[in-house]
């Protein structure tokens, strides 16, 4: 690195009380460079970024952070305030809550402009409109007077970027800027960042846990773990030849559209223990599809909102799930996936259509009969913490369904609990733990164990891995597939992640705005998607390979340009 870096971090430590989550990180960014910061959850990515802004209140910072040669840790709060939003800007993970809900978009943009540029209100207004136009917000003049809640997530993130770019900063830190967004929006936001950075010559630090995104966007990548750097280097090198075993594991655990669906995913633990080559070798033979177990016909569900408006969340959905298969349901947030799953389990009444599970419609029966039927249909939820009663120990949690149905004796039940724990790969020592004493992945396993305790035929897995880290996600997906094989389970697998759906399902249905727009066997559907929406979903999925990902983004951008998709999508979303 011959040029002087804009940002030069040496031996950064961050501690809270006695804990030191960041244990000495070195990091350099050259002017105009795009650096990717990756690593599992809790590895210290955000803390490092916040330290540069000095926004991590209450933390003790050690080491040295130099910005254009100035020691940031030595600056007064007033001087720091000048730098913030001026020379250094930041875009945060959560566009939904990063804008002040009671101020107009215009007011917030103008504030940002005027804080670093002593211009008149009119001039600031004009500049704000210009910025909005720059980040691709249509009708910017009109939008200035609107409030954040009138903007979609993608639009809000664009506003955040506009705000960050308002002062043409030397350095932009983007902390998971797309995590909360759906794939199509995500890829457009990344494009935008790219374009803006190029335009203003801004150096970017992109924090992400998505190796695909990092592959396409970054020039250099730095991998963190447990508050330390494990590896850093040019993207192409690191992706092609990961040096550190942890990086190797991380790369291996990624589920993308290129993964071999017939093999288990190598998990970090395994990789770290046994090396890359040793795992994921054994193949999973194709499954035999059975007769129809669940049949959903023309199911419609409407919600009456507080304002009296009616939302049709599910609109005439029909599909069949056959015994022993995994039926994948994919679609963006709000498309009605969860509503379908609740309809299937009769957890919510429906407004039309019928469900038939093994010849019985759960909506037509009630009381004891329904409770008996529920023994055979189980559900695993997205948020593993919320799905477990925080007052109960793991053994109580797993025992609860058995008790509810009066199954077994105390002794036999506790035997069953241990058996279930073993089945999901947890030791006996977990039996007396509370949910708060376990990690997300462990909680999700308990959740699965609880569902299995009643020995169901059928399980609904609603975004059961979305909240998990890549490596933990891999563990859970492997577990689910192993269980299906052993116990002959049938799954309704819901996700917004096409890659995960592809890996798990034999039949896939794509939902959009309450309807199934495309449905078919996995291989057919992924080989030759028919519906425009399916195609755009697929095109938006990043690939964890720098060269391929750059190519994908180029093609996707071309497609957008041709169809003008970006503008129209924004319009409909913003107005909804």
């Amino acid at each position, binding site marked *: 690195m011959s040029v002087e870096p804009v940002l030069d971090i040496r031996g950064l430590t961050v501690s809270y009380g006695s804990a030191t989550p960041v244990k000495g990180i070195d990091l350099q960014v050259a002017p105009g460079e795009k650096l990717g910061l990756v690593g599992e959850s809790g590895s210290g990515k955000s803390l490092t970024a916040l330290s540069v*802004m000095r*926004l991590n209140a209450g933390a003790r910072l050690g080491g040295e952070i130099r910005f254009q040669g100035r020691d940031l840790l030595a600056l007064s*709060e*007033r001087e720091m*305030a*000048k*730098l*913030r*939003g*001026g020379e250094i*800007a*930041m875009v*945060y993970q*959560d566009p939904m*809550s*990063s*804008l*002040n*809900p*009671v*101020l*107009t978009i215009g007011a917030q943009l103008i*504030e*940002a402009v005027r*804080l*670093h540029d002593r211009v008149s209100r009119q001039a600031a207004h004009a500049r704000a409109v210009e910025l909005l136009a720059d980040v691709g917000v249509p009708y910017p003049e009109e939008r200035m007077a609107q*409030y954040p*809640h*009138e*903007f*979609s997530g993608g639009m809000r993130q664009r506003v*955040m970027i506009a*705000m960050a770019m308002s002062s043409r900063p030397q350095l932009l830190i983007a902390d998971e800027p797309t995590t909360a967004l759906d794939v199509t929006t995500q890829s457009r936001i990344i494009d935008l960042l790219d374009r803006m950075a190029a335009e203003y010559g801004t150096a970017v630090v992109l924090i992400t846990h998505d190796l695909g995104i990092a592959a396409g966007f970054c020039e250099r990548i730095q991998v963190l773990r447990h508050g330390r750097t494990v590896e850093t280097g040019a993207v192409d090198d690191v992706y092609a030849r990961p040096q550190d075993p942890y990086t190797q594991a991380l790369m291996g655990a990624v589920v993308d559209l290129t993964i071999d669906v017939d093999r288990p995913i190598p998990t970090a633990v395994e990789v770290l223990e046994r090396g890359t080559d040793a795992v994921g070798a054994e193949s999973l033979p194709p499954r035999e599809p059975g007769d129809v177990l669940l049949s959903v016909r023309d199911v419609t569900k409407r919600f009456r*909102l*507080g*304002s*009296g*408006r009616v*939302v049709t969340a599910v609109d005439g959905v029909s599909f069949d799930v056959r015994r022993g298969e995994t039926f994948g349901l994919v679609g963006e947030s709000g498309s009605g996936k969860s509503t379908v799953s609740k309809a299937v389990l009769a957890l919510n009444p429906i407004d039309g259509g019928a469900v038939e599970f093994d010849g019985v419609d759960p909506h037509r029966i009630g009381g004891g009969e329904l409770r008996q039927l529920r023994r055979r249909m189980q559900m695993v939820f997205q948020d593993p913490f919320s799905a477990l009663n925080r007052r109960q120990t793991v053994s109580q949690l797993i025992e609860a369904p058995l008790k509810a149905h009066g199954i077994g004796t105390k002794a036999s039940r506790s035997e069953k609990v241990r058996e279930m724990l073993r089945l999901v790969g947890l030791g006996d020592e977990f039996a007396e733990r509370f949910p708060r004493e376990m990690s997300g992945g462990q909680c999700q396993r308990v959740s699965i164990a609880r569902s299995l305790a009643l020995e169901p035929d059928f399980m609904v897995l609603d975004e059961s891995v979305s909240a998990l880290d890549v490596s933990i996600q891999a563990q859970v997906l492997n577990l689910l597939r192993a269980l299906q094989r052993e116990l002959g389970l049938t799954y309704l697998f819901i996700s917004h992640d096409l890659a995960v759906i592809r890996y798990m399902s034999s039949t896939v249905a794509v939902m959009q705005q309450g309807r199934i727009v495309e449905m078919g066997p996995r291989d057919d559907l992924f080989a030759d998607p028919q519906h425009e929406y399916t195609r755009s979903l697929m095109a938006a999925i990043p690939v964890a390979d720098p060269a391929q990902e750059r190519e994908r983004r180029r093609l996707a951008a071309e497609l957008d340009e041709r169809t003008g998709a970006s503008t129209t999508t924004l319009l409909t979303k913003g107005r*909804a």
Partner: protein
Amino acid sequence: MIAQTARRVAISIAMLIATSLIIFIVLRLLPGDPVITRLGSTPGVDAAMIERLRQEAGLDAPMIQQYLTWIGGLVRGDFGQSYFNQFSVTELIGQRLPATLELTFLGILLAVIIALPLGVLASLRPLGMVDRIVTAFSTVGMALPQFLIGIALIIVFAVQTKLLPARGYTPFDEDPGENLVRMVLPALTLAIAASPLLIRYLRASMIEVLDSSYIRTATGKGQSRWGVVIGHGLRNALIPSLTMLGLIVGYTLGGVVIVEYVFGIPGLGSLAIDAVFKRDYAVLQSVVLLISAMFIITTLIVDLLYGVLDPRLRTKGRHG
């Protein structure tokens, strides 16, 4: 929005009707009646005379009829007639309302003046020195019954130092200076009782707001600390605190009953207490209904205002 407002107003009206029913029924549970109380121990009164007086007062009519008469009158703006003098209830309330309104208003104003800076200061550094002191002050304030606060203030400011009058009321239009001087202690009593709740609520919502991402955004923009705290923090924290203010109004309206009693202020509260003791149903039921209505209407206004102040509730957008 309009539909929702209409619904909210309809609910408030239903609540008012329910309140009137509850009040009416509860009052009739009382032993004795205004006629007996009115007579005190006047000699030479026999059952026939009492019966005649009851008839005159309309107390012999069936309950339902009495209720309908009352409500019918209310609708026409006629609150009825006191059993104890020749004034209509409207006139009696007219005499008392200014004092109560003034007291409530000043009490809440003072409470806000006390609570706003303290709540904000406390929230800046949760569990810091300032916060601890403010929190301690607020727990102490909450543990003091209004009458004790009143007594303490009287002892300190009227008895010991003779700085302020201990009791009494002068109408504002008669002598504004005197009026305010006499209002200081009662309003302070109400404020000391009400401000802890406001402080705590404001503090909690400030802490929550200051912890939110958009505050980080504002700081990240380079806004100064106070610019963030006032321009973004307080602004947002005040909206949820508005709900609390609605409750405080109710609490304070309840509190004026005691405060008026302690400080000898001729307001609705003392009118109501007298009416309870005298069984002056006509006065009592209308006064209680009026106080309840003030509370219900305040809540209604707060709700509607909330919708106006919080842009998220303003439009019918589904993102709200």
